[in-house]
């Protein structure tokens, strides 16, 4: 504990998840320290999204334990949701609402102010289309709007599932600046990725999932030495 805050923003031990008879996660253990962004790599079906959804309290694990800022993800699920900003693979917006209405809805759900709505729209560069329905937005614009929803309040922990998909170079920069500001203020992030390239500058280290297990842990700054796996220890 540092100043009453846990050192580990995410602490997962022996996490297991089963869908029907198939085990998707088999004893996954790792932690993410405060002030750190960690990449979660792995092929399709390796369990990356499942890890994020469990940490976001959208799924309940069948085995193991998980803590977010010291809160149990099963017992304190509601409080965990108050600390976490979760960006799913799909933007999850309402097509028949305008960009501003989508954010106002999210602000009401989160308890954020209407000033935050306008600020978020400005930050993601969608203020000029705030009154337009989302139905007419491109995939990249929808992604930006989902980012605006993410930063409506300041989450302590970010859980990002393929956050760079459909983003242009400017969008990638925006994503990395959001990551940087959360991590820089003592928060943490876990980022599920197919490709490391866009996130390289923002991540402190990476974990590789394969077949529901942590296959490799890569040391600080994956841009420089991500090819050198560190032996899996816990």
């Amino acid at each position, binding site marked *: 504990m540092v100043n009453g805050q846990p050192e580990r923003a995410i602490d997962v031990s022996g996490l297991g998840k089963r869908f029907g008879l198939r085990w998707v996660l088999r004893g996954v253990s790792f932690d993410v320290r405060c002030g750190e962004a960690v990449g979660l790599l792995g092929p399709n079906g390796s369990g990356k999204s499942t890890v994020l*959804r469990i940490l*976001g*309290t*959208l*799924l*309940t694990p069948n085995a193991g334990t998980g803590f977010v800022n010291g809160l149990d993800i099963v017992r304190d699920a*509601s*409080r965990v*949701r*108050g600390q*976490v900003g*979760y960006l*799913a693979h*799909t*933007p*999850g*917006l*309402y*097509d*028949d*609402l305008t960009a501003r*209405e989508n954010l106002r*809805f*999210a602000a*009401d*759900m*989160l*308890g954020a102010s209407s000033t935050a709505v306008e600020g978020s729209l400005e930050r993601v560069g969608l203020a000029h289309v705030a009154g337009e329905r989302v139905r007419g937005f491109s995939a990249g614009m929808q992604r930006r709007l989902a980012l605006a*929803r993410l930063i409506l309040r300041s989450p302590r922990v970010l859980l990002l599932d393929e956050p760079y998909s459909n983003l242009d170079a400017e969008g990638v920069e925006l994503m990395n600046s959001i990551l940087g500001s959360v991590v820089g203020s003592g928060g943490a992030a876990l980022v599920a990725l197919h490709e490391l390239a866009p996130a390289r500058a923002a991540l402190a280290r990476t974990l590789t999932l394969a077949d529901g297990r942590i296959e490799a842990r890569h040391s600080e700054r994956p841009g420089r030495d991500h090819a050198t796996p560190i032996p899996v220890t816990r």
Partner: protein
Amino acid sequence: MAWRDDWRRVRAIARKDLTTELRAKAGFNSVAALGVTILVLLGLALGPDAQALRNAAVGAVWVATLFAGVLAFNRSFQVELESGALEPLLQYPGPRWTIFAGKLLGNLIFVTLMVAILVTAGVVLFGVRLTAGWPSLLGVLALGIVGLVVLGTFYASMASRSRAREVLLPLLLFPMLVPVLLAATTASKALLGGDLMHDAGAWIRLLIAYDLVFLIATFIAFEHVIEA
């Protein structure tokens, strides 16, 4: 204060649902059109006998409400699934019963609007003469709507994760609604006929009890259903 936060979330969900339904013109218009079509068809099937039409009016309105309501309940969760918005919705902080309460409030307003159209159409098409007991009739209508919407919203949330949700919802819902429809129809018919046998009261008490039991049960069960 926690209850204010919860109430803000409930209102936000109801407002969002109603806005999306009213903007997606297929929503309200198609549901109301289905209801009126059912009334017209039943009226034609019963023939020109004025007394037979009046006797069947209450049942016809409830049948139309039931079928149109099923469409509305299915749509209320379909909106979340189509856009992948269910996960962000579940990820917002606060208790998950507020999601159910918001959906319930949205559906209550939606179905009440629809019933207002159907009752008006029913009165005109079936030549119903309103009696002095019409305030009680409105009360029965309100209790019936609550029963229908509570169960409809709950089973729509349960069926929402299934690929066969359009088929599953009526299969789950219709048997559970038998007591509501029976009580609402019988009480309404008794009140329209002047309630000479004083049997409306028992049916109204049954409606109140049924609504209360399922209101409490569905609020408790919703969190488990939506996570499954």
